[in-house]
């Protein structure tokens, strides 16, 4: 036995039995060793896909997450021209998906809370629901008088189907339907939000669409607002003007509102509200997909499914609180312009203090909103925890909206700093 080859145990296997042993062994050793080396050298190559696959995915996600810029493909327009374009839009036939995201730091309510059925619930709870979390709404419209709005919940859905004067409400959670016949004149009204002639039907909360919000924020834009047009954006695959409203007053929590206005037809595609001092939107509602073709007409036909409970509603006075059309409603309140019963509106219209961005909604105890909101807080302990006890009541504070619930039942709300609400509450 030589001194070297013994180190390689495989050399022992097949002694050739003649003089060529040493020679043959060393050749085989070299071959095997080099094969082994090659194998270990190339072994890392086998892991390349394992590294490449996540890398490719990460790269794809990064590219996809870069805010879509249309690259200023649209002809330049002044802010006034963009506002005119938006005001004149006549797009009332489309199907689209609206996604609403609130990052207000409020705990999320159950998607189909105890107040989801048409029979129960109230507007205050609905307003709170849409102040939290994410909501997806599918909107189908064919002209002003045919519409269908689907609030998509997990394994549940709330529908509002309108064909001319017939409005159906359906909630899959408890399989209940409600029917409302609108007064004749309602069909002719120039509805800014044609989908929802009476979205304020109690307990059938619908998050505001970009159109509602755009109209509301524009109405709030007064002389104290800097209006500009930012670089073009891409919303739902459509190039859009980016109209930016920037309140100059320090009396509001709103830092910036940007409205994406479709470059082609002037339709508001998305609304983002940035709280003061942040770049990330605290609230966003926008189309994630939009088709301008007429939806299938069968969508607007609704018959209560077998086994459902059906309630016949009368067009009635709204007992819930509303914000007037000229007000920067905090996102999430009901969008109903409420033209149907404009006369009654003044009676229940909450008293408002301040103007423009600094508007404070003040609800007296008689409206019952305070007790309803308190009830909502009672039902959701998480939300109750978020409410801070302040002198005379509780304060629900978010970066964008403050709501002050007084112990005497009054409610103050607005996109203003909390001390302004307290000042309004203590004012005579």
């Amino acid at each position, binding site marked *: 036995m030589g001194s070297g080859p013994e180190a390689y145990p495989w050399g022992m296997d097949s002694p050739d039995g003649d003089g060529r042993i040493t020679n043959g062994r060393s050749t085989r050793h070299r071959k095997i060793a080099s094969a082994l080396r090659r194998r270990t050298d190339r*072994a890392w190559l086998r*892991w390349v896909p394992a590294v490449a696959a996540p890398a490719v995915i990460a790269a794809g996600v990064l590219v996809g997450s870069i805010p879509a810029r249309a690259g200023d493909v649209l002809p330049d327009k002044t802010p006034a021209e963009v506002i005119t374009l938006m005001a004149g839009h006549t797009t009332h036939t489309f199907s689209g998906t609206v996604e609403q995201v609130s990052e207000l730091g409020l705990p999320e309510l159950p998607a189909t809370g105890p107040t989801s059925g048409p029979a129960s619930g109230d507007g205050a709870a609905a307003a709170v629901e849409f102040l939290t979390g994410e909501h997806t709404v599918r909107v189908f419209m064919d002209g002003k008088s045919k519409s269908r709005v689907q609030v998509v919940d997990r394994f549940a859905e709330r529908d509002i189907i309108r064909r001319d004067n017939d409005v159906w409400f*359906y909630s899959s959670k408890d399989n209940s339907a409600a029917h409302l016949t609108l007064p004749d004149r309602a069909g002719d009204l120039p509805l800014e939000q044609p989908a929802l002639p009476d979205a304020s039907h109690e307990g059938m909360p619908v998050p505001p669409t970009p159109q509602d919000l755009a109209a509301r924020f524009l109405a709030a834009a007064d002389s104290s607002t800097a209006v500009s047009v930012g670089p073009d954006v891409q919303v739902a695959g459509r190039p859009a003007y980016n109209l930016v409203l920037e309140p100059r007053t320090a009396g509001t929590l709103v830092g910036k509102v940007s409205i994406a206005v479709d470059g082609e037809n002037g339709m508001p595609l998305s609304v983002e509200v940035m709280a003061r001092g942040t770049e990330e939107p605290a609230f966003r509602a926008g189309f994630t997909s939009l088709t301008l073709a007429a939806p299938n007409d069968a*969508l607007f036909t609704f018959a209560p499914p077998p086994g459902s409970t059906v309630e016949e509603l009368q067009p009635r006075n709204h007992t819930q609180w509303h914000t007037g059309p000229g007000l920067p409603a905090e996102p999430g309140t009901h969008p109903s312009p409420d033209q149907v019963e404009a006369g009654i509106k003044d009676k229940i219209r909450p008293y408002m203090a301040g103007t423009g961005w600094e508007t404070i909604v003040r609800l007296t105890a008689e409206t019952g909103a305070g007790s309803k909101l308190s009830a909502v807080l009672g039902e959701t302990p998480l939300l109750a925890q978020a409410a801070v006890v302040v002198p005379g009541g509780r304060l629900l504070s978010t970066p964008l909206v403050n709501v002050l619930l007084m112990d005497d039942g009054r409610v103050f709300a607005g996109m203003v700093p909390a001390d302004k609400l307290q000042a309004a509450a203590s004012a005579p």
Partner: protein
Amino acid sequence: MLPNSLPAEAPSPRAPEAGTRGAGLSLLRSEIAVLFRRRRTWALLLALAAIPILIAVAVRVSSAVPPGRGPAFLDRITQNGLFVAFTAMLVSVPLFLPLTVGVVAGDTIAGEANLGTLRYLLVAPAGRVRLLLVKYAGALAFCLAAPLTVALAGAAIGAALFPVGPVTLLSGDVIQPPEAALRLLLIAAYLAVSLAGLSAIGLFLSTLTVVPVGAMAATVVLSVVSQVLDQLPQLEWLHPWLFSHYWLGFGDLLRQPVMWDSFVSNGLLQAGYVAVFGALAYGRFVTKDVLS
């Protein structure tokens, strides 16, 4: 058993490409045949079929379920037997389906290694990559069979115990039984896609060990962990990346018109998981010293 079922006339390593492809196909055929001949696979599928049967019998013998209680659709069962299938699929998504898929996927490589048959499989000219692909295809076949079993058993027991009629969708629209059956199959397909990512994870874990039970348990535990993480609001940024995130999204197939968003997102997510864990399994299995 498996080595015996390998094609005896397997072409030699120098055979043309078509020959090895044929070997791959017959390997796949034998893999699937072996998988579905196993008593364990049948036990898993029978356990899954028992879920709708239990639900249907429980609803049949008990009083009416008040609406809004229990899992979605449960209150509809007495009016329409097809809802047994929908309810059963909903109930089986969080645990039962991942459990059975974890057992099958975790067994793919580790099971052969444990039986000592892995090296015989690798003697065949098919090669390690092809064996890995065939094993994964077998797991996918089970991913498809599992929700289909729940759906079919649910529809059958529902039709046996309750009246079958037009189905009310979440949107309040009513569809006829044939279309409802189509939606049922769509949901089964959705769930099969949903489980593809978990199968890839199980396949990778299976290449790490020669103890199949370890890989199975790890796979099932991961599926539970992923679902728990999905419930924590503090980890919201992570949620869209969890492979279980869209598992319960199949409700979107019960809307009118069908909402495809979650199907597409789910497909993309699962494809990502298949790519990452498939690549990991490849890296591990090809460089692994097969000793058993």
